[in-house]
């Protein structure tokens, strides 16, 4: 999830330059086609591939649901989905977004998973005046440092909100209120550092902005132990977290509460850690226990997750929701082939998807719909696998809690 | 019986011809000197015999085998030994290890026999006292001796000597020539010897060939070849290495 604003701006500029020549021709041709084309950009390969792991399943569900086309204003439009892989690179993401816009002439672009996808793709769409909906990138990272968006939208959680939820959970346990912060030298790490440090009532022992890929955490562990941190708040990339948490065990550092953003989202990481995963707290922005249904085919979150055949992952829900939002936008626009109308229509949307409620009319920033953030605790289930059990539903009480929060010691 | 036969070998580097349908045979036990001006193709000739170079056409036969396309290591094992003009000892190995590798790999000896062979050639080349030294510490004369020792340790039937005497003082040359003569008498090996220092050659070889432009322009007894008009002309036309060498001898 490393990500640099300067690089993005550079790429954005490149994108604008490459598209400028074509945008005029685009507007002419866009009115002619009958088919609604949806472009979908995600990291299928590369270090972020874990996010795109469920894409084939999600796309299959969506294609089945939309196989008869969309009936809008008495007309039926066939729907075509064009899928592009970013190979986990921001440069490649910008490039494939350009291809979708110029060559495939899509009517909307959907972008998912980490700032390396959402931001370059959104920039391309702004430049080419093509509607875009993005997800799985904290809204602060998506919105900060970009000009106010017109064509691009984001539906996801925010880091500040997540810090609030974590702090609420920390307050539930009896601790000395000292928080050890394991925050790397990347955009996510910086945001957590900023928001946690700004919270009053908590003393912070900062790890310092270590590099992603660091192999040895003994000096950081010594600092946490020296500062008597009883709470750990971490936002590392998954491999670093595994390394850190194993070394913590070797060095007998065991705080009362360990809350881990980013790294502990995926069951595969919990499996990797084995019993060390027990009791770790992680954010839940989607789970199979959510009481919501797909607006495309009516299936419940549980049915959707079970149909996957493998252990579900949180991105599934939000990636599916992107298509639901796109369909809602087509229906809300007077003419689904009119890019400006579709883009404007997204801004009026308020509804429910399999991921929960979305509301683009009242976000914390322009064109942002803020999703609620819950907390879960990793626990071993009866079959020996690890589940993320929801223990905090403050932000969306319609989602039931599945267990009581218990500190590590 | 011929130990080496070159059958119309040709080799060109771009426009430069270093061997032009060159045919040559060397009999067992023969000592043949090779002279010629710079760029005559002497070292390339050695390359094609030892395997570092592949001829464009023609055939190299050694001891009854066609070796034209064989790897240098295989030719070495068949019995072709070679020294380089500028010695190339294995600098990271000790003097003894240098000859030991050659004894084990080139002569295919093992265990005790290989150690005995390596020690023997060191004794013969006067390096016994330096056996434990890293080769990198040796001076030029010692490196030349080691080059010879390593070639001898492969137990060659044919020894290719490339300017063994170059860069040495007269007494050193005398010493080295004595070493080579002794080795020849002991092993009965054939020698093909490139040399600018003609005195060293005339004292040892019984046949001399002169190369120029990739062809043999003189072949026979040393004095007879040196006296032939064609050979004289070739050397007069160039920077006259031959005369230089003779001057130094005088």
């Amino acid at each position, binding site marked *: 999830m490393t990500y640099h604003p300067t690089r993005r701006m550079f790429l954005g500029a490149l994108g604008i330059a490459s598209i400028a020549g074509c945008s005029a021709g685009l507007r002419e041709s866009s009115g002619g086609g009958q088919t609604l084309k949806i472009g979908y950009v995600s990291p299928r*390969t*590369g*270090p*972020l*591939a*874990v996010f795109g*792991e469920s894409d084939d399943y999600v796309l299959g569900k969506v294609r089945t649901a939309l196989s008869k086309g969309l009936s809008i204003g008495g007309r039926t439009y066939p729907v075509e989905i064009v899928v592009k892989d970013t190979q986990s690179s921001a440069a490649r993401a910008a490039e494939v977004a350009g291809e979708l816009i110029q060559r495939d002439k899509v009517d909307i672009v959907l972008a998912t998973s980490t700032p390396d996808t959402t931001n370059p793709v959104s920039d391309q769409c702004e430049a080419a005046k093509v509607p875009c909906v993005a997800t799985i990138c904290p809204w602060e990272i998506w919105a900060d440092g970009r000009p106010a968006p017109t064509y691009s939208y984001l539906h996801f959680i925010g880091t500040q909100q997540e810090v609030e939820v974590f702090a609420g959970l920390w307050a539930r346990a009896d601790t000395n209120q000292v928080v050890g912060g394991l925050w790397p030298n990347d955009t996510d790490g910086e945001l957590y550092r900023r928001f946690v440090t700004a919270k009053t009532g908590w003393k912070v022992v900062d790890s*310092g*902005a*270590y*590099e992603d*890929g*660091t*192999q*040895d955490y*003994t*000096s950081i562990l*010594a600092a946490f132990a020296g500062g008597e941190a009883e709470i750990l708040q971490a936002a590392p990339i*998954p*491999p670093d977290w*595994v*390394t850190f948490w*194993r*070394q913590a065990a*070797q*060095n*007998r550092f065991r705080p009362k509460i360990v809350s881990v953003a980013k790294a502990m989202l*995926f069951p*595969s990481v919990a499996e*990797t*850690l084995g019993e*060390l995963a027990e009791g770790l707290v992680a954010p839940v922005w989607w789970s199979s226990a959510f009481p919501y249904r797909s607006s495309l085919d009516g299936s419940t979150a549980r049915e959707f997750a079970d149909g996957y055949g493998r252990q579900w992952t949180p991105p599934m829900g939000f990636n599916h929701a992107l298509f639901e939002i796109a369909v809602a936008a087509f229906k809300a626009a007077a003419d689904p082939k009119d890019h400006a109308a579709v883009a404007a229509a997204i801004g009026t949307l308020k509804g429910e998807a399999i991921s929960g409620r979305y509301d683009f009319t009242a976000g914390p920033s322009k064109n942002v719909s803020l999703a609620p953030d819950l907390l879960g605790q990793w626990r071993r289930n009866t079959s020996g696998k690890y589940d993320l059990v929801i223990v905090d539903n403050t932000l969306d009480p319609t989602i039931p809690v599945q267990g009581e929060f218990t500190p590590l010691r | 019986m011929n130990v080496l036969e070159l059958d119309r070998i040709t080799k060109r580097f771009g426009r430069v011809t270093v061997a032009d349908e060159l045919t040559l045979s060397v009999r067992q036990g023969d000592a043949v000197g090779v002279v010629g001006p710079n760029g005559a193709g002497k070292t390339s000739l050695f390359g094609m015999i*030892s*395997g*570092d170079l592949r001829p464009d056409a023609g055939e190299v036969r050694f001891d009854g085998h066609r070796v034209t396309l064989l*790897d*240098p*290591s*295989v030719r*070495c*094992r068949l019995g072709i*030994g*070679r020294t380089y003009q500028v010695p*190339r*000892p*294995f*600098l*990271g*190995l000790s003097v003894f*290890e*240098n000859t*030991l*590798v050659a004894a*084990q*790999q*080139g002569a*295919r000896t093992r265990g005790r026999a290989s150690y005995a062979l390596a020690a023997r050639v060191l004794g013969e080349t006067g390096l016994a006292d330096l056996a434990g030294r890293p080769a990198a510490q040796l001076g030029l004369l010692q490196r030349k001796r080691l080059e010879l020792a*390593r*070639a001898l*340790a492969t137990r060659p039937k044919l020894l290719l000597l490339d300017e063994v005497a170059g860069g040495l003082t007269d007494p050193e040359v005398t010493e080295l020539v004595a070493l080579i003569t002794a080795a020849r008498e002991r092993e009965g090996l054939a020698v093909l010897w490139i040399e600018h220092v003609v005195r060293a050659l005339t004292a040892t070889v019984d046949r001399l060939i002169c190369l120029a432009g990739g062809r043999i322009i003189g072949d026979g007894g040393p004095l007879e070849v040196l006296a032939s008009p064609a050979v004289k002309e070739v050397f007069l036309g160039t920077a006259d290495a031959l005369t230089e060498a003779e001057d130094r001898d005088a």
Partner: protein
Amino acid sequence: MIAALVQGVLVGGTYALVACGLSLAFGVMRLVNIAHGDLAVCGAYLALVVATGLGVPVLAAVPLILPLAFGVGVVLQLVLFERALRGGVLAPVLVTFGLSVLIQNLLVTGASANPRSLDGGAFALAGFEAGGVAVSWLRVAGFAVAVVVLGSLHLVLARTGFGRRVRATADDLEAARLAGVRVRPVFAGVAGISVATAALAGVFQGLMSTFDPYAGGLILIFAFEAVVIGGLGSLWGTLGGGIVLGVTQQLVALWDVRFAVLAVHVLFFVVLVVRPVRP
């Protein structure tokens, strides 16, 4: 401070374990193996497959993996590297880069992009305290294995016929041929050793943290830096280079953890400038 030194030395051992194969391949064959890190990752995956497949602990799988990895190295040398090495300076770099990409994509297809890890059991999580320094047994074991591997390699090179042939070939390929050394088996053996040590290092990487199909790049960078800092082609130098890397990282982290990894890269760069690489 002392803690940082101790940890630095221990971490350095793991760097050296990856780096020694790279160093050997470069020193003997002038092969810059871009795929070295990916081969280490393959070793970790292999350990995972063997350990779960046979239901044995990871460490019990190692004796099975090493000969296999050796064989892979031999085959790679004979079918791939040998040709590439004949193609000049750039060809081996391109070919091994291609191999690296190929391995990554095969692993993604075969094993998905999920990060994996090797379960070392209780031993992997155990630690002890000495003089106020918390030390992990796994790290100690990693360091010890690195020293043993480097020591055995050193002995093999110094004392055996194979080692002499390797050194002779490394010194002067043509002269070695003329002395009767058949270079193919020498190179194949070196490639085998190189890949086997990479696989072993991959297993330790997997025990200490995680690996995924793309983890090879980072492994390669540290190994490469250890080799360059330690002096090309020198085994003990490689251990020294690894330790220098580890200690630098730890000491700088004491001051500001932000610059820990950066400091290592800067050190590498300074070494390159002050003492340029002479192959």
